[in-house]
């Protein structure tokens, strides 16, 4: 295989080559490290690359395979982790100068799960400061979109979208509070899954807003995402939210038929005034592909999608602010402007607004989302109304209250409702703009039907070739 083909090979292709003896985990890790060394000065997907540790793990994986110790499908598969998840002995910054030299002594549970499954950690991925979203100042370098480095990766898990898109990791882990896996997945043209809220342990993760925080996998294919999700789920967590004891074999579930699945397009989000016509065309084509596969389609209304952004801000900013208060008191100057303003706002949100948003507001959105599922199995929307925008050095600060309100209304109706409802939601590429930027569709499912969301996404990828495109990175 050519080096670029190795970098873009999926879990099953690598696994077959390992077990045939035509490729080794060391060769694969070295290929990825060479690529990171060559490309990441431009892309800034990584904050920390663990070169020596990755090679050491690869040698161990290779030796284990030779001795007949096979850990399963992820044995020898390179992965990378958003720098919001703790890694034992490896710097964990959460994208902030506050933690620029912090080395944890534990692995977050999703990290240890992938390591135990034999996956090989390449390093820690770039993100917006403490996962608080864009715009961000990126003290460790601004991540740039592999499809065009003048465009944004999206956030907060920007590096987690960029690394698999650029062939710099087979699987990446991100964290999605209200869109932080799905946004970079959409902008970078990869698959990103926000799982059901309590399906994956958050133990060892730096929180943003506990009631909605999730950890999810990103990769170029649904197959690879399904393997990562399986490894991260199941019993034995050190997590107060007590995830499920038994989970399906997500990979095996992908092969089930999709005929007869009932999909519903969310009326408020498609079509939608102001959305990019290229997005709407690509999503319309994706819906036709689903119909050709035997999926029935209808539309459904979720009127509160337009209010979800403000509801989240009222309780999410407050949640984050309480977490950060000790550091805000001592080291406010070490936060970037955007994070400092947002957290300071959270400190002052009146209790009636925060409590109402967390209880009544969130419950009302969740009720509408779950009611929508009474007539369908899957909800379909564009992931976002535009492709990745160009990077612009925005003037910091708000011009007016309307400017601040606009932040609640632009992208958030697409991504926040499913987070508030705690349901699984997945973004995958369904086309490209005329200028070559990825366009994406989102599928959301009922709680704990992550398998069905993955199945319909896999059927779509089997019927299309968008996921096989590679950015021209040289």
């Amino acid at each position, binding site marked *: 295989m050519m080096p670029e083909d190795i970098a873009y090979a999926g879990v099953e292709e690598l696994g077959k080559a390992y077990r045939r003896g035509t490729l080794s985990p060391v060769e694969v890790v070295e290929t990825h490290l060479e690529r990171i060394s060559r490309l990441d000065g431009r892309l800034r997907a990584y904050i920390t690359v663990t070169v020596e540790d990755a090679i050491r793990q690869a040698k161990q994986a290779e030796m284990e395979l030779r001795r007949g110790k096979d850990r399963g499908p992820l044995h020898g598969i390179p992965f990378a982790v958003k720098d919001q998840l703790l890694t034992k002995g490896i710097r964990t910054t959460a994208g902030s100068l506050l933690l620029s030299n912090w080395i944890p002594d534990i692995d977050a549970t999703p990290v240890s799960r992938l390591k135990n499954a034999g996956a090989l950690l390449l390093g820690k991925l770039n993100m917006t400061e403490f996962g608080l979203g864009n715009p961000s100042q990126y003290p460790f370098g601004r991540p740039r979109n592999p499809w065009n480095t003048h465009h944004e990766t999206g956030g907060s898990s920007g590096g987690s979208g960029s690394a698999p898109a650029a062939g710099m990791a087979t699987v990446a882990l991100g964290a999605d509070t209200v869109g932080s896996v799905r946004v970079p997945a959409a902008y970078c043209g990869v698959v990103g899954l926000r799982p059901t809220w309590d399906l994956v342990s958050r133990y060892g993760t730096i929180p943003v807003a506990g009631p909605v925080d999730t950890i999810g996998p990103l990769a170029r294919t649904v197959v690879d995402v399904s393997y990562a999700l399986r490894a991260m789920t199941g019993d034995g967590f050190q997590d107060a939210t007590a995830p499920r004891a038994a989970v399906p074999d997500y990979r095996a579930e992908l092969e089930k038929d999709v005929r007869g699945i009932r999909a519903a397009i969310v009326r408020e989000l498609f079509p939608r005034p102001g959305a990019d016509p290229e997005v709407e065309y690509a999503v319309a084509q994706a819906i036709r592909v689903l119909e050709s596969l035997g999926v029935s389609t209808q539309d459904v209304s979720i009127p509160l999608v337009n209010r979800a952004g*403000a509801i989240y801000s009222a309780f999410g900013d407050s949640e984050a602010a309480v977490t950060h*208060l000790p550091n805000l008191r001592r080291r406010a100057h070490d936060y970037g402007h955007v994070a*400092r303003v947002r957290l300071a706002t959270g400190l002052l949100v009146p209790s009636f607004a925060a409590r109402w948003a967390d209880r009544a507001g969130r419950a009302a959105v969740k009720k509408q989302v779950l009611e929508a599922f009474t007539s369908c199995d899957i909800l379909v929307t564009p992931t976002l109304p535009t492709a990745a925008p160009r990077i612009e050095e925005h003037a910091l*600060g708000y011009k007016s209250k309307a400017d601040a*309100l606009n932040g609640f209304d632009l992208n958030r109706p697409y991504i926040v409702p499913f987070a508030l409802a705690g349901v699984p939601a997945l973004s995958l590429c369904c086309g490209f703009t005329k200028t070559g930027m990825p366009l994406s569709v989102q599928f959301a499912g009922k709680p704990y039907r992550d398998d069905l969301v993955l199945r319909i996404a896999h059927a779509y990828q089997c019927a299309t070739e968008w996921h096989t495109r590679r950015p021209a990175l040289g």
Partner: protein
Amino acid sequence: MSACFDPTWTKNALNELGVTLQTESEYKDVATRLGAIVERIRHLMNEIPDESETIIPICKTNP
């Protein structure tokens, strides 16, 4: 309600919590964002119907 979220009030409130921002414009940004959140939530409290069955709060599940 949102009228009280001016930069001076914001600065005093944050200082009482022991938090000092970097510039005067940051207090203005906090006041603006705060006003936007509270205004939107106040509207939503009127827009989203109150579905409680009674004005007397009753705990229906074990805590």
